[in-house]
């Protein structure tokens, strides 16, 4: 009897730090979802913890930063493919998605499958466009204004009323109770992330995250909602629990229906005291807590890999409610020779 063919999957996002990329969690789920699998890590920096975890990652290659452009990325992936015969590639960073989507048809010609949204889908759910996105698709989002000058702050605050949320173009957010705090937040965000800055109405409520997988045709293969139980000072979940709430499942289904989202996504939701659900952000990839979906019975990374390879995957209909994750820090010990290997040769 022939043994099943081994599948090789490349995964990015190995930075399992205090603000973790999803890669290590994706790999953990993939290893549970496939009996015969080889994992190729794709890293940007030599100190991403995941690339030293050899029980999870078989081999790692460094890849160029997104700013190097899509052609440089394609060249590097082509080289890696020549060494490793990649079957599937799962990118896990927002900033790299544009390039990976751009080269996805070239990758497919090489024999590397991906399961990604379109550039249009990526653009529509961008923070800058979220307000319009909500109106267009009948999804509740907090009223928000995009400002390009600090002078616009006062007018925006008058319209939205304090407290307001001042958000960076790519990352970070501050709650401002008054003009002084808003101005300080604006300056910080401008210095770090540049303009524009987004001013959002503050919604009081319970923060809930939903990890889901869209089939690209309007259907949703998997939905798992989670409430953060412990949050780090960077706002990241350090512990969480799966929830049973039909309204959250309906929200994710509605999102897939109206966007025809293809691939993993995360909805960051605020449930206000009246039960209304506001989408605060849409992340166009799996979250760092994605392993919880596998632990709860809906292995989203494995399902995505199967769909990328053209398999029909039936939508999951149940998951374990009350399944918890508690993240922990662990000092992994390695030798300088490994660090030298990845630093000098870009491979480990």
């Amino acid at each position, binding site marked *: 009897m022939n043994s099943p063919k081994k599948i090789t999957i490349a995964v990015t996002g190995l930075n399992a730090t205090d603000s973790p990329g999803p890669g290590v969690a994706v790999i953990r789920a993939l290893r549970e979802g496939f009996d015969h699998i080889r994992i190729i890590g794709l890293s940007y920096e030599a100190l991403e913890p995941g690339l030293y975890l050899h029980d999870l990652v078989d081999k790692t290659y460094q890849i160029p930063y997104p700013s190097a452009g899509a052609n440089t990325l394609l060249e590097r992936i082509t080289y890696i493919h020549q060494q490793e015969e990649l079957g599937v590639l799962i990118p896990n960073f927002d900033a790299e998605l544009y390039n990976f989507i751009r080269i996805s048809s070239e990758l497919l010609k090489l024999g590397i499958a991906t399961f990604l949204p379109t550039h249009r889908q990526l653009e529509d759910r961008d923070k800058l466009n979220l307000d319009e996105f909500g109106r267009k698709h009948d999804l509740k989002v907090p009223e928000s204004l995009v400002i390009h000058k600090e002078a616009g702050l006062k007018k925006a605050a008058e319209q939205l009323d304090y407290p307001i949320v001042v958000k960076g173009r790519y990352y970070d957010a501050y709650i401002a109770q008054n003009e002084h705090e808003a101005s300080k937040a604006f300056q910080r965000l401008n210095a770090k992330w540049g303009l524009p800055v987004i001013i959002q109405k503050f919604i009081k409520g319970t923060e809930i995250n939903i990890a889901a997988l869209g089939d690209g045709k309007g259907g949703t293969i998997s939905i798992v909602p989670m409430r953060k139980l412990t949050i780090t000072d960077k706002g990241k979940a350090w512990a969480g629990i799966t*929830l*049973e709430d039909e309204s959250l499942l309906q929200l994710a289904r509605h999102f897939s229906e109206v966007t025809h989202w293809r691939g993993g996504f995360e909805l960051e939701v605020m449930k206000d005291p009246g039960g209304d659900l506001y989408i605060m952000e849409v992340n166009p990839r799996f979250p760092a807590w994605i392993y919880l979906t596998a632990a709860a019975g809906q292995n989203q990374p494995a399902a995505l890999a199967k769909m990328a390879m053209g398999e029909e995957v039936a939508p999951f209909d149940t998951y374990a409610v009350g399944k918890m994750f508690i993240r922990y820090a662990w000092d992994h010990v390695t030798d300088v020779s490994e660090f030298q290997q990845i630093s000098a040769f870009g491979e480990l």
Partner: protein
Amino acid sequence: MKLKPNIATSENGFIFNPATGDSFMANVMASEIVNHLKKEKSIPEIRLLLLEKYDVEQQQLDRDLDDLLQQLKEANLLD
């Protein structure tokens, strides 16, 4: 006044609301009352059961029961 149907309880007094992720630890008396509610007993029925079982003044029991029901309501555990 009913306990929401999806609320999970255990014999040691742990109460879990799967819709919100909230959990609570009830003392022995509160746990007993919550378990009566879970079995869909009415408040008058529960009051009677407790008066028969424990040596307690009705006024005291009513005050404690009202207090607990208020806490359960605030914790979003009642329909």
